């Protein structure tokens, strides 16, 4: 079992724990694993040293405590963690800007070479297929920023950049356009933007261009890197999952939307869904601007949730709570639509535009 499989399994086995607690536990073990790998222990051995995943999960579940009152030390820690969250978001925003400049230069090229920071050669590649017949676009990457860009054309195109320690697998069969990437660098090549702050290495990025009116499903999974998408008018199910990085969406209309991250912001602007719209992160804010959905679920910890929802407050049955901070929402029943907002140590401020 590699580390990704191990942690996916562990996460699943710990699903009964409160999300915040579970993330903390996973981060703890992940950190030690990465440190071991960094110290030259092969990934497989480092994973084995953690022991059987079921045994570990059982041990964790057995000692999992009930939620406790905050100690002053914990509050200090939270403030520090939140601060780093803000720094990360700032770095990612800068990275996104850096990337925008990069794509403008490169749009006409289909393949070009440049040298990597480690001196190896890398090459940008394009994989395209007719959108007609594609029911699902699936991206499954490691440590890659994912950008979903809408186009007026009728093709789906994936742009990526090969590098020595990166494996890509692209396919289009049985209605599934799939982009898969494995990062074999064992974490030694985390996104540059994390280190030098502004410029994202093209090898840390996958861009998928999809027709604006694509009506199928989109599923994006990555790690330690942001996901950005904008301008899709009639998507089916839209699912995004990453870690330690932001998810930024704008101008999207979909059947339903599900977003999950950790330690970073989720930002939504002009999003509407016919079904559920759910967003979940940790230690960071959720920001919304003009979202419309009959079933909205927003969840974070140690961060604020704020923004505007289209419609009238009275249309919603509201379930809202925070701790150690204020909320402008009153929980209420009787509305046809559902709104659930939960955070801790963070403000809730949601306005309705009618």
């Amino acid at each position, binding site marked *: 079992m590699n580390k990704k499989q191990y942690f996916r399994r562990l996460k699943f086995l710990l699903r009964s724990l409160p999300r915040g607690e579970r993330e903390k*536990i996973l981060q703890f073990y992940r950190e030690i694993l990465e440190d071991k790998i*960094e110290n030259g222990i092969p990934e497989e051995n480092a994973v084995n040293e953690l022991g059987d995943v079921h045994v570990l999960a059982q041990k964790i579940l057995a000692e999992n405590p009930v939620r406790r009152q905050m*100690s002053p*030390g914990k509050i200090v820690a939270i403030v520090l963690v939140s601060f780093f969250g803000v720094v990360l978001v700032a770095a990612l925003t800068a990275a996104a800007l850096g990337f925008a400049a990069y794509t403008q230069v490169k749009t006409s090229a289909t393949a070009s070479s440049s040298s990597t920071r480690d001196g190896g050669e890398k090459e940008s590649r394009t994989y395209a297929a007719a959108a007609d017949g594609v029911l699902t676009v699936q991206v499954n990457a490691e440590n890659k920023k994912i950008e979903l860009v809408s186009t007026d054309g009728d093709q789906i195109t994936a742009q990526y950049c090969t590098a020595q320690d990166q494996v890509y697998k692209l396919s289009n069969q049985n209605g599934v356009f799939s982009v898969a990437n494995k990062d074999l660098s064992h*974490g030694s090549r985390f996104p540059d933007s994390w280190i030098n702050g502004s410029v994202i290495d093209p090898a840390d990025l996958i861009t998928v261009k999809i027709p604006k009116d694509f009506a199928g499903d989109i599923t994006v999974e990555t790690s330690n890197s942001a996901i950005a998408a904008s301008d899709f008018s009639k998507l089916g199910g839209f699912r995004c999952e990453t870690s*330690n990085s932001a998810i930024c969406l704008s101008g999207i209309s979909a059947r339903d939307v599900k977003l999950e991250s950790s330690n970073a912001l989720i930002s939504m602007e002009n999003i509407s869904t016919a079904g559920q719209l759910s967003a979940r992160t940790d230690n960071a804010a959720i920001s919304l601007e003009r979202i419309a959905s009959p079933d909205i679920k927003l969840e974070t910890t140690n961060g604020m949730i704020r923004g505007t929802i289209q419609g009238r407050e009275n249309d919603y049955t509201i379930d809202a709570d925070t701790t150690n901070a204020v909320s402008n929402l009153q929980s209420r029943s009787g509305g046809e639509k559902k709104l659930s907002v939960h955070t801790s140590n963070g403000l809730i401020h949601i306005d309705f535009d009618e």
Partner: protein
Amino acid sequence: MDTQLKKGVLDICVLAAVSRKDSYGYQIIRDVSSCVTISESTLYPILRRLESGGFLAVYSVAHNGRLRKYYRITDTGRRKIKDFFEEWQDLVRIHDFICQEAETDE
């Protein structure tokens, strides 16, 4: 070693491991392991207990493009180590008593 006894002592070992310099999970395991075996799954609840008891403060530092949690001992934590040394004197007396009684039994 008896698990109950070990459990109490391990908390102090972890405090001691961060007392000279702030430290992080893997480093604590390596430092403590030089005298007594400690696994990740043993360390986690100890750190959480010490943190929620106010004996340790936690902060994150970016390291190689990821976050690493560092633990810093608080004044309360230092006091706990001191208390341990005082309690240890009691333990020594208990030890002496056990030796003495065990001898007379034979």
